[in-house]
């Protein structure tokens, strides 16, 4: 029903002139094509060859888009590619940003990387506290009923799956549980 009237008491029509600052940035030239080159008040000609001084030394593995001739003058270095996810990422960077062969493997690598993260934690003798990492204390505090229902449903579905998989004579079909860590 498209019945919400436009002048319900909840939504009174507003007189713009009552609003502090109304119209102070109004500019008839604000057509939707900003920024246009000629209208820049920058006072410098763009120079496509210019690069900043002192390129950041490439002392870590940096994957680079094949759409640029060189590494940018600075870059981030927090997580160089490693392991299986690193192999997938390196492969993805053989393709241009115009190709799904670039983006889709990166998404896959991200998921593989999550498992590597858990393995890494365990290898360092650390058991990841998934409850805390998912911030469930907040759900518990502010959204308890819905949260319990959700957990109960997931529990029931999981139990059902286990029963189904363990009772069947058929070989358990692969249930593709993509993104399994975030399903709730």
């Amino acid at each position, binding site marked *: *029903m*498209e019945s*919400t009237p*436009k002048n319900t008491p*909840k*939504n009174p*029509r*507003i007189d*713009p002139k009552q*609003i*502090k*600052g*109304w*119209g*102070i*940035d*109004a500019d008839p030239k*604000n057509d939707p094509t*900003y*920024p246009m080159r000629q209208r*820049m*008040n*920058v006072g*410098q000609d*763009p*120079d*496509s060859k*210019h690069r*900043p001084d*002192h390129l950041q030394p490439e002392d870590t593995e940096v*994957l680079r*888009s094949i*759409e640029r001739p060189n*590494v*940018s*003058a*600075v870059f*981030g*270095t*927090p*997580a160089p*590619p490693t392991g299986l*996810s690193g192999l997938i990422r390196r492969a993805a*960077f053989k393709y241009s*940003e115009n190709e*799904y062969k670039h*983006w889709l493997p990166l998404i896959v690598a991200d998921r593989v990387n*999550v498992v*590597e*993260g858990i393995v890494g934690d365990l290898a360092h003798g650390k058991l*990841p506290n998934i409850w*805390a*990492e*998912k*911030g469930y204390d*907040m759900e518990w505090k*502010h*959204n308890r009923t819905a949260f319990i229902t959700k957990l109960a449903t997931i529990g029931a579905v999981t139990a059902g799956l286990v029963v189904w998989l363990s009772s069947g004579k058929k070989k358990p079909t692969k249930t593709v549980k993509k993104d399994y*860590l*975030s399903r709730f």
Partner: protein
Amino acid sequence: MLAMDYRGPKRVRAVQKPMPEIKHPQDAIVRVLRTCICGSDLHLYNGNVPDTRVGSTFGHEFVGEIVEIGADVTKVKVGDRVLVPFNIACGECHFCRQGMFGNCHESNTESTAVGAIFGYSHTAGGYNGGQAEYARVPYANVGPTIIPPDMDLDDAVLLTDVVPTGYQAAEMAGIQTGDTVVVFGAGPIGIVAARCAWLFGAGRVIIIDQEDYRLEFARNYSYCEAYNFKEMNDPVVFIKKITDWMGADCVIDAVGAEAAGNTMQTVTGRKLLLQAGSATALHWAINSVKKGGVVSIVGVYGPTDNLVPIGNMMNKGLTIRGNQTSVKRLLPRLIEHVQNGVLNPKGLITHRIPLEDVADGYRMFSAKLDNCIKTVLMPPTANQ
């Protein structure tokens, strides 16, 4: 130092990490005093942005105090309190020279469509973000802007992204005096976009969302009409109807790929990840704007969404109208607006959470618990 740490979709924690180092003569190290969780961090948090590596630190909205500078840094000095625009820009390349700081070509090696953003995946340059006690800030002569002594740090931190992005969303909408402006999404950016639409002379401002508490907040903060799309059969028909069947003059998509409201899109995009998120808000925007109207996109889409590179369209600033915000270009005017009381950024903040409890902060914001609009994280070393 303590820093936020991404472990996988919907899993984050606070851990000890090595201190950031100067890697380029124009780098600075900043002690973070305030940092926010942004709606666009939720795209990372949910695992929707390609090349978000486990172990990364998020956070592109932060203010802090300079504690160390590289040899070539001249515009700021140790001890200065700065607000750090979310985009990393060299100030010298072809695009920076055109004022397109959000599109710098010398800060992101891994993608040419997307500019570099603090703490926003390797696709956006692979930089660690500001949800930490300390952060490396490249090109410290360009981005970091000294916070005026009379400005509240809570106002300043919202000038790193939210306020400029909302403002630019309104600017890109090409609002002319008297125009009817519709904003999809009553998150912090949408709320600011609605507020700023008035500054450009809008005659009527309407905001659409599905959370009543956000709509109520928008009514009060942005003085706009606010409607819940769950109460409508079809938001597009609704907008046509309340605009004399013409459609809005300008529509702003402040939602992006986390959009709810369309089952097909939700299932294929947000659940199965067959596309990079759901383009529901974009569909509504395109369909509810008047013929000849303007659609302004500031919501974050994947680089490739719905088999169309709509995210690249936004990141590259093409003229359907969308761009990452050039914070630096807008700051002088926005600082003026804050100082004159025209804008009140800190009015958006509803929660303040210690960095140690970052996982709770993300959960609260992403699940829209406790009427959360905007969360500020406080690192232990912020000590004030």
